[in-house]
C-alpha cells in the first residue's frame, strides 16, 4: 500500500488519499492489469454477492454526499427510485467537469479509470441499472479514449457485459462526449443532451431524474468522484468509512486550489479536517511573496465569495462561534453557514493584486457565455450583468450601474428552471455585497445620466 509518488508530486502530509491514491504514482498506469495488482475489482466481486439494497444501505450509512456541487446525499438520491418501477433504470456518470476552478475528475479519469468503472459497476448493481453512460465533457478527448480503453479491458475480463462474473447481472457502459457546454453538467440538461437534444434543463417537478430521467425512465446521475467513493465505502463498510471526515461531512474530498498561491493544485483531504488557513498556508505554500489575501471563492466560480477580513458566525445557540476566513473548516455545512458553499471543491484564491471588478467581470463573462438561453431571467440577465461589468472594467460605468447590476442578479436568483440561475447570480450578489466600495470606485459619477452606447446616441440624435 505504500505508494511512491513522482518527484515533486508527493501528497502533502495533511492529505488523506483514497480516491487520488493512484494519482501521480511512480510506475502506475491506467491499465486493468495495473489496477488488478492492488485489489482491483475485488469490491465488485464482493458486491455481486450482496443484496443490491444492502449496498445502498452502506452508502446511506456512510453519509456520502455528492461531490459534483450540490452535496446531496448519494444514498438518499438512490432511494428516490420508484419502488415498484417496471421501466429500465439508467445510471449516468457526470464527467462534465466544467465549473471554473475545478479539476479533480479529469485526474481520476486520466490516471485511474478503472476505479471509476468499478465504482460504476457496483453502483449500477445497487440501483438495478443495466445500462450506464459516462457523459464526459468535450474538452477531455484523451480522457474519453482512456475510458473507452478501460471499458474494453473490463469487458474482456468479464467485469462488464453479460453475466458479470457469473452473477447473472448485465451491464454496458457507454462513453458519451459532450459538445462543449457548461450546462451539460446540470443533470437534466445532461440527460437532454444524451437524448440528442439541446441541453435545456428540465423543470422539476415533474422531471426529477430518479423518477423521470433518461428517456423518461428512472435515472441516477452521480459525479465521478462520488461514484469512485462507492467502491471504497464497500471496502471499508459504510459505518467505518463515515468515520473519515467529520459528522454529516464524511469521507474525503478533493480540493482544487487555483489562483494566487505559491503551489496551486489538488489535495485530497478529510472533509472538515483541514481549515482554509491550513489549505492555503500549509498545503499550497502560502500566498505569493509580499501579497495579502483579498478573497476566496471556496467551491467553484459560482460559490459566493468570502472576503478575507470577514468574521463568520457559525453554529446556533450555545454552539455559536466566530471564525475568521483562515479558521473555516473546508466542509459542506460550515461553508454553507459562512454564506457560501463547498460546491465542487474548486477553491479560487484572490490576493490584493487583483481588481475585484476584473474578477467579477471574468466570472460574468463565463456565465453569460454558458447560459443555455432557455429561460428568460438567466438568458437576458447573465449577458446584461456581463455588459455592465464590461463597462465597470473599462471605466465607462456610473455608480448607479452597480445598483442595477445587483438588482439584475436578484431578478435571476431563484427564478430560473435550473441552478444555473444561482450560479450566474451569486458571484455578482456576493461581490456587490462585499466589495461594493471597490466596484463603485471603478465607476465614474459623471457618466450617471449619459447615454452610453452608440445605439442610444443614434436614437437620441434622430430625435433631434
Amino acid at each position, binding site marked *: 500500500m505504500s505508494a511512491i509518488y513522482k518527484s515533486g508530486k508527493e501528497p502533502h502530509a495533511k492529505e488523506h488519499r483514497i480516491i487520488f491514491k493512484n494519482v501521480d504514482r511512480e510506475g502506475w498506469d491506467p491499465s486493468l492489469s495495473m489496477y488488478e495488482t492492488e485489489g482491483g475489482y475485488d469490491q465488485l466481486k464482493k458486491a455481486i454477492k450482496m443484496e443490491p439494497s444492502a449496498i445502498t444501505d452502506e452508502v446511506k450509512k456512510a453519509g456520502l454526499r455528492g461531490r459534483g456541487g450540490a452535496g446531496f446525499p448519494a444514498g438518499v438520491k438512490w432511494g428516490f427510485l420508484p419502488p415498484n418501477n417496471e421501466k429500465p433504470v439508467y445510471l449516468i456518470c457526470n464527467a462534465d467537469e466544467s465549473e471554473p476552478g475545478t479539476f479533480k475528475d479529469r485526474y481520476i479519469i486520466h490516471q485511474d479509470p478503472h476505479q471509476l468503472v468499478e465504482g460504476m459497476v457496483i453502483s449500477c448493481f445497487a440501483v438495478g441499472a443495466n445500462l450506464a453512460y459516462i457523459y464526459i465533457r468535450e474538452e477531455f478527448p484523451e480522457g474519453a479514449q482512456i475510458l473507452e480503453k478501460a471499458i474494453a479491458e473490463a469487458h474482456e475480463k468479464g467485469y462488464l457485459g453479460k453475466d458479470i462474473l457469473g452473477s447473472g447481472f448485465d451491464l454496458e457502459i457507454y462513453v458519451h462526449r459532450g459538445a462543449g*457546454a457548461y*450546462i451539460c453538467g446540470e443533470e437534466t440538461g445532461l440527460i437532454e443532451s444524451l437524448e440528442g437534444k*439541446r441541453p*435545456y434543463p428540465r*423543470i422539476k*417537478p*415533474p422531471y426529477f431524474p430518479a423518477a423521470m430521467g433518461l428517456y423518461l425512465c428512472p435515472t441516477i446521475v452521480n459525479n465521478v468522484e462520488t461514484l469512485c467513493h462507492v467502491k471504497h465505502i464497500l471496502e471499508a463498510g459504510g459505518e467505518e468509512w463515515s468515520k473519515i471526515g467529520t459528522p454529516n461531512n464524511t469521507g474525503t474530498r478533493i480540493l482544487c486550489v487555483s489562483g494566487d498561491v505559491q503551489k496551486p493544485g489538488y489535495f485530497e483531504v478529510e472533509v472538515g479536517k483541514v481549515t482554509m488557513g491550513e489549505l492555503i498556508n500549509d498545503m499550497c505554500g502560502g500566498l505569493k511573496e509580499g501579497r495579502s489575501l483579498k478573497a476566496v471563492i471556496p467551491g467553484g466560480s459560482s460559490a459566493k465569495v468570502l472576503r478575507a477580513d470577514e468574521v463568520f458566525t457559525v453554529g446556533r445557540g450555545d454552539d455559536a462561534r466566530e471564525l475568521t476566513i483562515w479558521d473555516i473548516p473546508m466542509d459542506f455545512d460550515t461553508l454553507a453557514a459562512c454564506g457560501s458553499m463547498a460546491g465542487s471543491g474548486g477553491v479560487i484564491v484572490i490576493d490584493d493584486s487583483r481588481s475585484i471588478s476584473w474578477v467579477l467581470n471574468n466570472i460574468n463573462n463565463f456565465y*453569460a*457565455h*454558458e*447560459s*443555455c*438561453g*432557455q*429561460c*428568460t*431571467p438567466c*438568458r*437576458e*440577465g*447573465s*449577458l*446584461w450583468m456581463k*455588459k*455592465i461589468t464590461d*463597462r465597470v472594467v473599462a471605466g465607462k460605468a456610473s455608480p448607479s*450601474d452597480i445598483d*442595477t447590476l445587483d*438588482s*439584475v442578479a*436578484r*431578478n435571476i436568483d*431563484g*427564478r*430560473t*428552471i435550473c441552478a444555473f440561475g444561482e450560479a450566474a447570480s451569486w458571484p455578482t450578489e456576493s461581490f456587490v455585497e462585499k466589495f461594493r466600495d471597490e466596484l463603485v470606485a471603478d465607476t465614474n459619477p459623471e457618466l450617471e445620466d449619459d*447615454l*452610453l*452606447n*452608440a*445605439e*442610444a446616441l443614434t436614437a437620441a440624435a434622430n430625435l433631434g
Partner: protein
Amino acid sequence: MSEEKNDLIDVQINGEWHSFPKGTRMIEACRQVGVEVPHYCYHPKLTSPGNCRMCLVEMGMPPRPRPGDDPPEPDETGHLPISWIPRPAIACANTIAPNMGIRTESEMTEECREGVMELLLANHPLDCPICDQAGECSLQEFSVEHGKGESRFREQKVKKPKNVDVGPRIRLDDERCIMCSRCIRFTDEIADDPVLGFTDRGSHTVLTVYPGRELANNYSLNTVDICPVGALTSNDFRFQMRVWFMKETKTIDVNCATGANITVFARENKIYRITPRQNNDVNSDWMPDSHRLNFHWIESDARLTDPLVRDGDKHRLATWQEAIATTADKLAGLDGSEIAVIASARMTNEELLMTSRLVKHLGAGHVDVVPREGENDGYLIAADRNPNTNGVMLVLGLENPGSQLEAIKDGIAQGRIKALLCLQENLVEDAGFGSELLSKLDFFLTSYPLANPTADIADVVLPGACWAEKTGTMVNVTGRLQRLNKAVDGPGQTLEAWEIIRDLIQATGGGNGIYSATDIFKQLAAEVPEFADLSWGQIGDLGIPLIETGETIPLLEREKERIEKGLIVG
C-alpha cells in the same frame, strides 16, 4: 378533464378558498376563478417547458412539522395554515395540491413579473410602431400591466437576423423573438414537422429553421397565431392592416366538412385575414393554411355583381326583377319532370330548406348536389371537401348526394330534361358537365359568386353571395350544427342564395313570408325532425351536437390522448 378524476382539492387563491379537480394546473385554477396569470410560453394545447418565467407566483403549502412538534391545526374553515415558500413557483406546469396557497398579487409575485418583463424587454427591439403584432402583442399587454414603465438597460442590444424567410408563408424577426418555443413545440407536437429549433445559446439564441428545410407544412401559419410577439408574421397579412382597425366576425370555415371555427378580420368590407377560433370539439386552436388563405378570390375581378340574361350570343346586365321574371316565364310552360335542380353542399341549411321548397313548388323531377371528395389529411381536413353534406342529407333529404348527377346528364342528353337550375355550383369545372351538353337545355340558370365557363352557357346568370357574405347554419362531419355569420357585404347586387330562391318561388307563384335566414331556421326547427325545438341563439358561437355520424377528427383524437397522459391541459 375526464369524469373519473373528479376528486376536488381545496386551494387558496389570493386569500379565498376554492375547489378544483385534482390534476388542475395552478394557472388554470387561477383562470377558472377569474385570476389571470400572465404567461408567454404556456399554451394549453402544447407541453409546458416553463421557460418564460412570466407565470411565477408566490406559493405555499401547509407547514411540515419537525418530528415531535404538534401538527398544524385547521382553522374554522377546516383548512390548514399556509407556510409560504420563499422561492416563487411557475403556475403553468405545476399542478395544485391539497391546501395549497397561491398569491398572484403579492409583493413577491409582482417583483417577479416586473423583473421578468424588464429582462424580456432588455434585448427586444421595441419597434412596435412598425411591428405587425402591435395591438395584439402579449409583450405590450403585460408591459402595461406588469412592467416598470422605464428601462434601466444602458447596453447595446443583441443583434440578430431580421426578415428571415423561414418558409413560403412565414417570415421571422429573430430580434423580436422571446424564445418561448411555442412555434417549435407546435411544429413538433401538432404538425409532426419539427423543422424549427434554436441555435446558439444564451441571449444570442436564435430561432431558426433546419438547414435545407423550410417551415412549409399546411399548418405552418398557426405558429404565427401562437407567437406571442411579432417574431413570426404571415407573408399574406404583414403590413396590410393594423389589427385594431379590423372588425372581427366569428364564423366557420367552409373548405371542408370539418367546419373549423374561425374569426374573419375585415375592415370596410374587405377581408384581411382569417384566424382559427378555439373550439375543442372541432378544430382545437388550429386550422390548415390552405383553408385560411382561401379568401382572396372573394374580392376577385371575376366576381359577378349583377344579374345577367342572355341576349343572342352575349349576356347583358339585368335587374333582379327581370332576371327572376325571365326565369319564371321559361319555367312556366314546363312539366316538373322536365326540370332539374342542382344545388350545393356548400349551401347553408337555410338555403337548402329553400331549395327543397323550390323543388317541391316546381315539382322538379331531379335534384342533386355536387360532391367533392378529397383525402383526409390526418389532421383537420376532412375527406369531404363540402362543408354541409350532412345538411344536404337532413334538409334536402338526399340519401346519397351526388348519385343523381349522371342521371341528370343523361336526361339532358336525351332531351327529357329541358330546364336546369344550378344553384351555387360550377357545373362545367367542378361536376364534369360539358358545355355542349348544357347547350342542349331550353333553359339554364346558374348562380355563383364568380364568372365561370358554366355561366357562359347559361340563359340567366345570378350573382350569389359567397360564404363570408351570408348567414346560416351547417352540419359538420361529426354532426355538429354550427353557425356561419356574415362578415362582409357581397359586391354589387349579389344576394344570398336563400334570397334568390325565395324570389324564384315567389315569381313562380308560391308566396312566402321569409325575410331573414333566422326566419328560415325557425321553419327548419319546425319541419326537420333533427332540428326540432332548436333556436338560433342556442347554437351559439361554438355550435351544438345535432346528429351522430360516428366520424372523428384525427387531430382532436391525438389531443385527447395527450390530455389523458397529462402532457397538455387541452
